[in-house]
């Protein structure tokens, strides 16, 4: 048994050398705390889990029938302490985790703004079929499948969706995910602490193009961020409402795109669209054709 396990562990170690194990490699304020919390939970659980497992197999082996010391006469009396101990030990561990869980959940609530010496910035996120649109309301620029943020500055992602199923916004290196839904705005607060490019995706299934609905989150210095904004501003293409209508159409494996500007009312329009009672009738017929085209064109 031991050599088998050792070989397996060695193999895994070889496979994992130098790879980005995102959750053990936190690059943001939130991810760091989530990582610490996870480790703490694992330690507490192993404190009860390992002794229990060892006991489980030790007792099973010790009292095997073929053992030379096997008991001949079974005594069925049990200690009076057994039942209380059996209930109290796991209850203590349960209460410890629960007692830690409640404040941690409040502290790390995604909606909670992060306090820092720098002003926080706002990025609006729209999950489309099958791409991510990022709007920078303060800077006035927009991008697809790419988001750049300055390091050590809190960011509030205001997330919604348009003409798309429920998705999820996740940058594992920077912090945990939150769902993106039409009609609703979810706010996710993150703060990056180390420069670099980090992968982002939707771990929630959103349809045939779901695997390609990825983006890159680039963390840079504030100065680099500012120069990126001005470069994007001067690039020329503007995301007009017409252009946006085209972007909403389903498409797969989209490249990054950058827009020098966008319609000021865009985000509000997208939210409002789903909040008018009774007006939003969906033209299923037309969609059917588009979707089936998509489904078939995605062959290799």
């Amino acid at each position, binding site marked *: 048994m031991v050599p088998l396990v050792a070989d397996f562990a060695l193999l895994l170690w070889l496979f994992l050398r130098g790879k980005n194990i995102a959750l053990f490699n936190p690059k943001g304020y939130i991810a760091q705390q989530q990582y610490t919390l996870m480790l703490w939970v694992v330690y507490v659980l192993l404190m009860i889990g390992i002794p229990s497992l060892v006991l489980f197999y030790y007792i099973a082996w010790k009292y095997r029938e073929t053992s030379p010391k096997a008991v001949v006469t079974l005594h069925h009396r049990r200690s009076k302490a057994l039942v209380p101990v059996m209930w109290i030990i796991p*209850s203590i561990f349960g209460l410890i985790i629960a007692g830690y869980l409640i404040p941690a959940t409040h502290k790390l609530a995604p909606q909670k703004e992060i306090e820092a010496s720098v002003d926080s910035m706002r990025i609006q996120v729209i999950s489309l079929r099958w791409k991510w649109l990022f709007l920078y309301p303060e800077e006035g620029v927009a991008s697809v499948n790419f988001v750049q943020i300055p390091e050590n500055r809190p960011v509030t992602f205001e997330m919604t969706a348009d003409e798309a199923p429920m998705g999820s916004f996740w940058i594992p290196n920077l912090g945990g995910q939150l769902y993106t839904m039409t009609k609703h705005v979810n706010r996710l607060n993150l703060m990056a602490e180390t420069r670099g490019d980090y992968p982002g995706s*939707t771990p929630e299934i959103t349809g045939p193009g779901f695997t390609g609905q990825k983006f890159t989150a680039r963390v840079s210095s504030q100065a680099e961020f500012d120069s990126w904004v001005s470069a994007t501003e001067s690039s020329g293409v503007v995301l007009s409402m017409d252009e946006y209508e085209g972007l909403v159409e389903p498409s797969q494996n989209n490249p990054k795109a950058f827009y020098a500007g966008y319609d000021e009312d865009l985000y509000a329009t997208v939210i409002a669209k789903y909040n008018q009672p009774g007006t939003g009738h969906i033209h299923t017929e037309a969609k059917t054709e588009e979707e089936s085209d998509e489904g078939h064109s995605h062959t290799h």
Partner: protein
Amino acid sequence: MKELLIGKLTWESLPHQWWTIAGSLSFIFLGLIVAGILTYTKRWKWLWNEWLTSVDPKKIGIMYFIAGGGMLLRGGLDAVMLWLQQALSSGDSHGYLNAQHFQEIFTAHGNIMVFFVAMAFIFGLINYIVPLQIGARDLASPLMNTLGFWLFVGGIVMVNMFFFFGGEYAATGWLAVQPLAGAEFSPGAGVDYWVWSLMISGIGTTLGAINFIMTILKMRAPGMTLMKMPLFTWGSLYSMVMALTIFPLLSMTLFLVYFDRALGTHFFTTMGGGDPMLYTNLIWMWGHPEVYVLVIPAYGLFSEVVSTFSRKPIASYTSAVVGMFGVASLALSVWLHHFFTMGAGANVNAFFGVMTTFVAIPTAVLVFNWIATMYGGRIRFETPMLWFLGFGFVFALGGISGVMLAVPPVDFQLHNSLFLVAHFHSTVIGGVLFGIFCAISYWWPKFTGFRLNERLGRYAFWAWIIGFNLSFIPMYILGFMGASRRLDHYDAETGWQPLFILMFIGGLVIMLGVALQLAQIIASFIEKKRLRTNNDPWDGRSLEWAAASPPSFYNFTTIPHAATRDAYWAIKKSHNRKTQYEDIHMPKSTGVGIYISLFATLASFAFVWHIIWLIVVSILGIIVTFIVRAFDENTEYTIPAAKVKKMEEARAKKEKAGPAIENNDYDEDMGLWELIKVILGFILGLLRNRGWRRWRA
């Protein structure tokens, strides 16, 4: 006109992709082979009278096993296809499945494994064992039971029907998340098949739950108070109460989904005031307790196995009963942990996180109880006990990862990742599937009168354990690396491919385990004379071991008196077993269950394809069958005491002819090294043979 006649069906609905053609052809071939064998051996009538229309819960149990076993192979094939795609599809390679097809496969895999494998075996076991354990001859409502079973078969038909008509299954994940599964994003027939397959099998489950609650509460042997019931019966009672609580909710939710899709209502749509968040809540209010419906009978079963094989009563019966109650009741109040990430406030998330953590407390009590039962016992390591010991490790893995996921801030990072997938596979494979394997090997002598081949059983066990770890430990690690679930393709620079390949190899080892299990069953049938055994091969403790193996169709000649817990143990010790023959009342076989289910399946098919006349006709058919049956006053018959005596004496004579043989292939190494030796020997033999030939050439 065409629309009136065949609704939305078109020529394109017929099989035209490779997998639908292969699928429908293999179903047709399988059907032809079975039909051929039946015709050749002239067994059609026998099949109809003895099995299909039977209301005997033991026969229905066996039919559940056969259906569940078939679906296990079908769902296993899906799993291999998924593993292979993920092992191949990195970087420039896109594997052999397109995204849509890949998504359909994992949806079908989830649905089949949960509804038509796990549920099938759990219901089969409850059917077979619970009446025996409580000393009953049949169920409270035998008709309801056969109807429930045949509705479940209708569900199987509907989940596979897309091979023949439509060519697509839901591509939405096993719970058909909204709004993805709405008409807007999934306009095809796939989600409708999902809806109606779960609808009719779910109604069957509701009926079964009502029936077993009635049976357990009202039909126990004299003397058996609730606190003397065997623990598997306790687990089944909890499980059925939970099923009755949640399955009507599932049916209603499915109706709403169908209304949205077919009639254009707005319960779960994005527009017109609907809200998918409502669906997410409703489906998980059913979906979370559902897995506990599956696992709680397994807790009861493990309690009995560990007590039987340690030759000791369970250490604390009350703790086991209360522990299972704790798990069952807490499980009804934790559903929101499936979507901490939907944006609820910290208070809501914290409440559900705490409740989820608390589920671990009674579960840990159950584990300690088993340890205490083993303490000071004399433990035999036979296959049922091996499955129990394997369960311990795998379930601990699932439990630890489960509590990690219960902490909301940690869940934000792990949710929807492969870590989550590995977690629920650990609990469902470790808890439910190993429980089922344990139960089958434990009760097989009761089902058939002979044991399973011990050696092959051990090989299968080790193949499963090794395959599971090879496959799911990398999956946990992939979750930590940020790999989300349901990926049909990933970038090469992520470095995930070696782990996915390892997972695929693990999957192959698991398939080796499945093949060994099939071989075990076949081998046991071949050498059933050698493996023959008496009614009590394991020195059992509860009443099912008092009945003959296999039990006569009326279960007990005389209804036993259950004076204590472990009633049969007490009866054995008292040596006071005189037989009195009495008249026995039994329910008659009936085809009503099949007829109603046939109409229900037709109605479901008509609902999927919007064939209005067929809907009307089938529903009328259901109503008329019910009315006709209601006027049938002759649903029971009596076997006179003299005839019972005759049958019992004939059986006793037959039993004496071949004495039971003690199990003697008993190893201390439990077969692991032997399995490795056998495999290595085979491979070496192969290599040597080939090398030798090359040298000669």
